[in-house]
């Protein structure tokens, strides 16, 4: 169990800069997720931490100890690969015991026939078998120990890959999109299992995904990456409610945040005819993007609340809630509104004609042309920290 410190990591492949001065501090026992679109450098960070890929500059420290000169096996990290990377010719038990066999037996003892003559080998192998059994029990794969990976389902292979990582009690778990090869239902299930596993082991997890739902639901903190840099690092609710950058606002949240374009004035932001009274740091006359989460819009604006005229284009019914898709009257820009079934039933009749959608300005996020946050409202009040 150790904290992890990345300082000024840079890495290029040819002329492509994959990592650009990345610094990151991960607390001991934290579940940190690196999230971003493909090619943003998140997997490369993982490979640099593991020692599979040398960085061009910068340092990696695990538990206060510099590991840059160490080989992967000496860093005491474990990695779960997207493809699971199980050895297809070995049984489940052999796969899981591999790291221990390599650690505890010398070259002669590992040789196929000669190794069997060693008494030490027999003793160590018995020890290892017991540890493998214990891990298999934790993951509920005891019944599969004699099978080959090809005879397992995706979910079972995933567990074997986890078992191979757990058996050596690593300081840091590195996971490279471990759930992306599973079907949707199993993915939801494994999300819960992984968070549970993290809680039980209490070890630092660094988890890479392109799926913002995984990032939001599993992590203590999330680092959103783009073009080789960390754009924002924060708790999931930070990233959702208080994004520092338009890219973060767009990436996090499902359905995606509504972005409407407006112009700054002395009184607020003008979106079409509507004036949204939001204080911004930009000078008047600038074009800005106003980000409105689907729950920052309502079907029945209270008297005096700023509103946007729009007409309904499509209804997505998810059962407990509905996503109502609107088009702005003036620009035709799409807007999604999250409504309860009751709300929808109440307003259904008048949705055939254009309606006024109430805007909760306190929740509006404003970004300048470069994508930086420019509204001044404090977001602290809206933070919904999950009690530890």
């Amino acid at each position: 169990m150790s904290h992890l410190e990345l300082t000024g990591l840079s890495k290029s492949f040819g002329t492509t800069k994959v990592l650009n001065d990345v610094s990151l501090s991960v607390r001991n026992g934290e579940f940190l997720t690196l999230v971003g679109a493909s090619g943003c450098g998140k997997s490369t960070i993982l490979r640099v931490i593991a020692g599979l890929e040398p960085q061009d500059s910068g340092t990696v420290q695990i538990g206060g100890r510099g590991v840059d000169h160490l080989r992967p096996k000496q860093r005491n990290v474990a990695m779960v690969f997207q493809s699971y990377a199980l050895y297809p010719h070995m049984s489940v038990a052999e796969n899981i015991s591999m790291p221990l066999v390599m650690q505890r037996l010398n070259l002669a003892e590992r040789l196929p026939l000669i190794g069997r003559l060693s008494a030490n080998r027999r003793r160590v192998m018995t020890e290892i078998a017991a540890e493998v059994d214990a891990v298999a029990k934790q993951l509920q794969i005891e019944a599969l120990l004699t099978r080959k990976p090809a005879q397992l389902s995706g979910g079972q292979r995933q567990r074997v890959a986890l078992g191979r990582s757990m058996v050596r009690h690593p300081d840091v778990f590195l996971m490279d999109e471990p759930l992306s090869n599973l079907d949707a239902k199993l993915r939801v299930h494994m999300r819960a299992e992984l968070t549970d596993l993290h809680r039980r082991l209490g070890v630092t997890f660094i988890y890479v995904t392109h799926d913002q739902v995984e990032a939001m639901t599993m992590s203590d903190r999330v680092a959103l990456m783009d073009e080789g840099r960390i754009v924002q690092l924060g708790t999931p609710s930070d990233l959702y409610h208080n994004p520092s950058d338009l890219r973060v606002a767009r990436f996090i949240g499902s359905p995606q945040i509504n972005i409407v374009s407006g112009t700054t004035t002395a009184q607020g932001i003008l979106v079409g005819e509507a004036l949204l009274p939001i204080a911004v740091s930009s000078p008047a006359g600038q074009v800005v993007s106003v980000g409105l989460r689907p729950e920052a819009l309502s079907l029945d604006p209270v008297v005096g609340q700023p509103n946007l005229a729009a007409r309904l284009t499509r209804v997505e019914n998810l059962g407990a809630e509905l996503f109502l898709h609107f088009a702005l009257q003036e620009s035709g820009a799409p807007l999604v509104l999250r409504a309860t079934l009751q709300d929808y039933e109440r307003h259904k009749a008048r949705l055939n004609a254009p309606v006024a959608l109430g805007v909760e300005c306190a929740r509006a996020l404003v970004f300048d042309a470069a994508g930086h946050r420019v509204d001044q409202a404090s977001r602290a009040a809206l933070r919904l920290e999950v009690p530890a």
Partner: protein
Amino acid sequence: MTVALKIGRVSASRNAQLRAEAAAGYAFVTPALILIMVLLIAPIVVVLLLSLTDYQLGALEWSWVGLANYSDMLGDRIFLRSLSNTFIYVAIVVPGSVVLGLVVAILVQERTKSKAIYQTIFFLPVTTTLIAMSVVWHFLLNPSLGPITSLTRALGLGEFDVFGDPDLVLVGLAVIGIWQLVGFNMILFLAGLTAIPRDLYDAADIDGADGAWDRFARVTWPMLGPTTLFVVVTTTITAFRVFDTVAVITRGNPQGRSDVLLYTLYKVGFQDFNMGPASAMTIAFLVFVLVIALAQAFFIDRRTHY
């Protein structure tokens, strides 16, 4: 009653439909079946029948001799010697060209820029005509004029008459066989090596299997199982068919120590025109090849596919 009748009628029309479908199916299969029969099965059947006769090439009369050709063959010193020489040759060529092919493939694969050049160089012997290259080898190893002999003489190792020495002749032929097969085996192994997922080596690195031997023993070699099996089988069959070098360089000499199966078969059939015994030998040859192929299909295949 009417219901039963109706069912009967339905099933009758159903049967008619099935028959029509079956007929169409056979019609589609027939051309391929005929070609297989004429081109693949018929020649074997003809050879099988010839092996039961005393037919001589060009002769107008022949008669059935039953299994006499086979019993003669099993008692024939030259045939048995050819057989054992062929096995010795195979026993040298198969391990030699498979191991060398693998080593060369692993070495070549690690290269990035020069990979294509090395591949081409090692593949060259495969593209040449073995008959022509046999002449070259014959010259290279010539005990009085050959450059290799000059070299060994200069190094103080003495002179070797490889193709004249009864103990060396098979080794000499096998070296040429290996030389010719390494490139082909290398290409097959290279294909196998590229198919190994990178992730496995990464996982091996993290698990601690990061030395050259461990990477080979834990990942490369097991993952090459199916390729190796294929290479061994094709190499065995190719080695079993050794003919060109013997026909050009040694003609079975010295003292019949380089008599091999196909060369003996050729002599009996096309120099002595004894088609009966030659056909019997052909059948024996086919049986060996068949055994190798069946061994692959039934035993080893199951253990190397994961």
